[in-house]
């Protein structure tokens, strides 16, 4: 057991935090949101320079390699600074899919991801899928040496701005993934704004034709890849939420220590003190679960991974709601104005809950994954069976560090 971060992780954290504190001000963020693209080229370039864009990519593929806790450190900082940029989508989720299953030709893109030249987006969810990974209605049919894709993809993070898309579609043997250039004929990408300032896209595929080598991995093998990617996304979102909660709690503390009412700082009111104690408790529970989620990303047992991921997303969502709502309430009128960062944290925390499955969704997933082990004699909560207790990094997973 060891809850310390490595020296490298501390370095990443400190340099990223310094950069974001100096550069990523609330006004800069507002400007990025107003631009509607959800990504500032200058910020993105600096991300590349800081090395974080290559964190999910092994060195031989042009990245710098990194494990789940490196990603956790970065995501916490992005959450703390309310970063809009599609880091998670490109550098962890999509890069992870290509690292794991991309052909050598496809993996050539990854060097560009690390340098910031290429952005990738995962076009998987559909209008009626409501976070169910297997609800893919988009179809890909073989036409000679090509595939022809028809369907609709919904709420794709960075879907309009990405240079390449990973698109899921149902083929004869199941769900398959395709790597497609962002600017393709017979594909319409409509950029939409999210309440948190980021950009999402609705994508319509009407006879989009892609070559046979656009297939990622084997035909019908898409679902496990998407599930693994969604687990990476959830762990990342949990860490982001933890960073955001840290910052929001600090803002709220600073506010109650200076804001005076009836002649005293409002932080001296016991009713507020007790509620802020609960905010801290829930923020710390969330941190605990974000650690657990990242720790479990690499275990072999899918059931164990699902349990931890869904437990973390549920609990973090609950904490995020409590901490966000209470922070706004304690700020009073200032909390509902756009002027302070408070409301922006609140909104981002709210939307994290609606991203990659909300509390209800993950409670359902957790309960389903748990039912099976009902009759096991000695139930332990973190560790489901002795055989899977050690987190053995999967050599194919994006968390492995082949370069080190």
């Amino acid at each position, binding site marked *: 057991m060891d809850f310390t971060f490595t020296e490298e992780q501390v370095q990443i954290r400190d340099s990223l935090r310094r950069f974001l504190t100096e550069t990523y001000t609330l006004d800069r963020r507002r400007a990025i949101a107003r631009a509607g693209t959800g990504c500032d080229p200058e910020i993105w370039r600096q991300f590349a320079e800081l090395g974080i864009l290559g964190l999910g990519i092994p060195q031989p593929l042009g990245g710098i390699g990194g494990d789940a806790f490196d990603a956790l450190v970065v995501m916490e900082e992005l959450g703390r600074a309310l970063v809009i940029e599609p880091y998670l989508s490109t550098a962890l989720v999509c890069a992870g899919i290509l690292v794991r299953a991309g052909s050598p030709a496809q993996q050539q893109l990854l060097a560009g991801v690390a340098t910031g030249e290429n952005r990738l987006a995962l076009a998987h969810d559909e209008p009626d899928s*409501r976070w169910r990974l297997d609800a893919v209605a988009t179809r890909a049919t073989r036409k000679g040496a090509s595939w022809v894709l028809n369907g609709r993809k*919904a709420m794709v993070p960075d879907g309009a701005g990405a240079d390449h898309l990973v698109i899921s579609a149902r083929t004869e043997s199941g769900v398959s993934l395709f790597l497609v250039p962002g600017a393709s004929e017979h594909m319409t990408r409509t950029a939409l704004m999210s*309440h948190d300032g980021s950009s999402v896209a609705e994508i319509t595929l009407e006879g989009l034709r892609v070559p046979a080598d656009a297939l990622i991995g084997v035909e019908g093998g898409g679902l496990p890849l998407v599930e693994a990617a969604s687990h990476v996304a959830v762990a990342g979102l949990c860490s982001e939420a933890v960073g955001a909660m840290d910052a929001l709690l600090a803002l709220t503390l600073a506010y109650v220590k200076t804001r005076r009412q009836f002649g005293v700082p409002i932080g001296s009111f016991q009713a507020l003190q007790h509620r802020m104690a609960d905010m801290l408790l829930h923020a710390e529970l969330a941190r605990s679960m974000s650690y657990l989620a990242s720790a479990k990303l690499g275990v072999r047992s899918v059931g164990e991974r699902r349990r931890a991921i869904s437990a973390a997303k549920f609990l973090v969502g609950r904490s995020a709601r409590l901490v966000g709502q209470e922070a*706004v*309430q304690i700020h009073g009128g200032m909390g*509902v104005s756009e002027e302070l960062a408070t409301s922006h944290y*609140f909104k981002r925390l709210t939307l994290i809950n*609606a991203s990659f499955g909300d509390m209800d969704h993950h409670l359902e997933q957790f309960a389903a994954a748990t039912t099976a082990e009902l009759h096991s004699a000695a139930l332990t909560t973190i560790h489901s069976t002795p055989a899977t207790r050690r987190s053995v990094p999967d050599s194919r997973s994006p968390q492995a560090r082949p370069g080190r």
Partner: protein
Amino acid sequence: MDLNFSAEEERFRSEVRAFVAAKLPAAIRDKVLGHKRLEREDFLTWVRILNTRGWVAPSWPRRFGGQEWDPARQLILEEECALAGAPPVLSFGPRMVAPVIMTFGNQAQQEYFLPRILNGEHWWCQGYSEPGAGSDLASLKTRAERRGDTYVVNGQKTWTTLAQYADWIFCLVRTSQEGRPQAGISFLLIDMKSPGITVRPIVMLDGEHEINEVWFDNVEVPVANRIGEENAGWTYAKFLLGHERVSNAALGPSKRALRELKAIAAATPSGGGRPLIEVPRFRDRIAEVEIDLMALEVMVLRVIAMDRERHTPGPEASLLKLQGSQIQQAISALAMEALGPYAALHQPLALSAGWTGSSAGPPLGLGITGRYFNYRKVSIYAGSNEIQRNIIARHMLGL
């Protein structure tokens, strides 16, 4: 003991329903039900229509143009209007400043202001809160210096709802530094067109412009626009806060929101072939808030009956405000959750009256998340829920 409305009241409900169905312009109704932005003229159009029946402020005394309705009738009117998608009749004129003018104003003030509230000529806004004086109102700093027949007002008010539309503002200002902070406050009526007034928008967390800062820079206000005595404004201010009872429960708006929530949940596929409304855990939560709304409705009726019996409003209004705001927030949260991933969509352009395009996402989704964000305000404004709990503890529990 009888929890039913009288036959007479039920007839009245039908009458209101028929009136609203016939007279509420479809364009306005569609904006309200579709969560689109309402403009000044939308509110005022509806006020003028209501005024044709004397329904803008029917609970006023007859001598001021009212009909001396009891709160039950007022409740029925508000509820039916809300359910049908009418814009609210804002409280600032009819239910906030008007009772003060009636009770403490002079005849000239009554004759000038009251009819103009009824006919929609004057839009009022409220100048209570200041940057340093929210829940602790007595610490306000905006000051008015007497110079002959004029006060010169300097300072700043904030969180002023829809001040951008307002013709008049009623203000608490400091006219004396002596004694307790409450002792030096006066109550002024100020023309928003006065030189020296600047209205600065405060953008709210949903991106909308609903509240403002109002700055006063040597604004001259005739002493004739002071209500009652100089330095006695705290009494009038407290009187005003003691009004606003039934509306605080937000019964009508919450019923409309519940109906909408069910419609959203019924139209939302949950996977597995069932609409979301049939998924037990979601259905349970709708059921719980519906039960809460039933209980709140009976509470409102009980408080109306209590007030009627003792001829004066009691502290129970705080229970209504507290629970009413919690229900509003709960429904708005469920509606947002029902949207699933689409909760993230922000389409400010589609909220405008001029918008002709179609919005993305589910048909009933527009404005739902924005309302969730916006509704954080309902537990903060009009006496935060912390203040309401303080009042309950002090005045109902004797703590």
